[in-house]
């Protein structure tokens, strides 16, 4: 059920990110909607679904970018796997949990993306990438972290209503 709902949502997020958010930049940074969605879904306690979503979402990002197909998918799966390892272990459902997770997962995601681009032979200035792209993107991701967590939590409750013993 989650996949039937999840794939159209991922498609929608990818299209919105490429068409709308790419025109609304903070310096050169944009929010990473698919990363946010999958981190938020992993925090609801469904790591396998989140990792599968990360694979599909990563492939969509690769198709809509100049990166080779599969590169972002690998990065996204690694990041979501690490998120799912920490989720639930620290602070349980504390308000800071989504914020902290989005903070380090965004930095890791962009760091790994930079490494891939460097491996592909692109010229990159790390200081410039950090100040113009990574930090603004992470800031935007942090702003959207709590709404994304709330939305994921609401979707999880509607897809998997809690069982009640009578």
């Amino acid at each position, binding site marked *: 059920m989650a996949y039937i709902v999840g794939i159209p949502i991922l498609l929608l997020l990818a*299209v919105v990110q490429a068409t709308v958010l790419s025109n609304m930049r903070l310096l050169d940074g944009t929010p990473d909607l698919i990363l946010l969605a999958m981190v938020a879904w992993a925090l609801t306690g469904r*790591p396998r679904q989140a990792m599968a979503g990360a694979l599909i979402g990563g492939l969509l990002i690769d198709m*809509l970018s*100049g990166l080779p197909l599969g590169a972002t998918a690998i990065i996204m799966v690694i990041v979501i796997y690490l998120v799912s390892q920490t989720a639930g272990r620290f602070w349980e459902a504390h308000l800071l949990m989504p914020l902290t997770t989005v903070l380090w997962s965004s930095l890791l995601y962009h760091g790994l993306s930079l490494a891939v681009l460097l491996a592909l032979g692109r010229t990159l200035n790390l200081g410039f990438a950090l100040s113009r792209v990574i930090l603004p993107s992470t800031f935007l991701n942090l702003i959207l972290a709590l709404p994304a967590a709330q939305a994921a939590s609401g979707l999880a409750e509607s897809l998997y209503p809690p069982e009640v013993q009578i």
Partner: protein
Amino acid sequence: MTRSSSQALFAMILIMIAAGLLVLNMGGFLSPVESMVLRPIGGAQSWLAVRFYAVRDLLASPADVATLRGQVRELQSQNAQLQQEIIGLQEQVAQAQVLSALVQYARSQPDSRYLAASVISRDVSPFIRSVWISAGSDDGVAKGMPVVTDLGLVGRVVEVFATVSRVELINDPSSVVNVRLQTSRADGALQPQLNGEIWVGMISQDAEVSPGEVVLTSGLGGNYPPDIPVGTLTSVRRRDYELFQQAVLQPSVDFHQLELVLVITNFQPLPFNQPGGP
């Protein structure tokens, strides 16, 4: 098997699937699949882009009015100055018409053929400066074709699918464009910087280059046809101890406001090699 190791195994399987796709893609085996997936996505992007641009223009219009008023005042003063020049130029027009007729006669190449396409999105990766356009191989677009607007050069097509294509902008650091300075006739090459600036490098120390000079494509290297406007020089740096001069270019195209572009479909580029690409 513990829950943690089961998750690690699942992650490994997914990573291997993605790595397999990566290898297949680098071999060029996935282009038909990508084309198939991008067809509906491209349609959705076109639909959304039209509405987004309309909303953006609506929201931006009050600011534009103030800007336009300032531009009108500036243009009125320029207009008075240009009226003076028109009289002198009318004399030259007669001569130019004769020359133009000779050039037309001598021209062996047919005029460029253009294909209009909408810009439907920008590259999702913030590290890559490219845009997606709503025309692909179904419309006759091929890798390496130059893309322009009525103002000047935009870039060239680097990826083509059935209904959409990716255009590498000339301000992407991977972009390579050989140029000629219109007045001094000096050759140079664009050197896009990571901060979005474009420098013109490889300008001979002997050339008398000055700010305001118009920069055109030179056609050298065979990547672009000659004489497409690229921009104007805003400043020039000349140091005696350096081999070449450098200049900063103001592109004639505003890459943030691209909505409609023209693909030159009858230009035959030299065999395409995407710099730094897979």
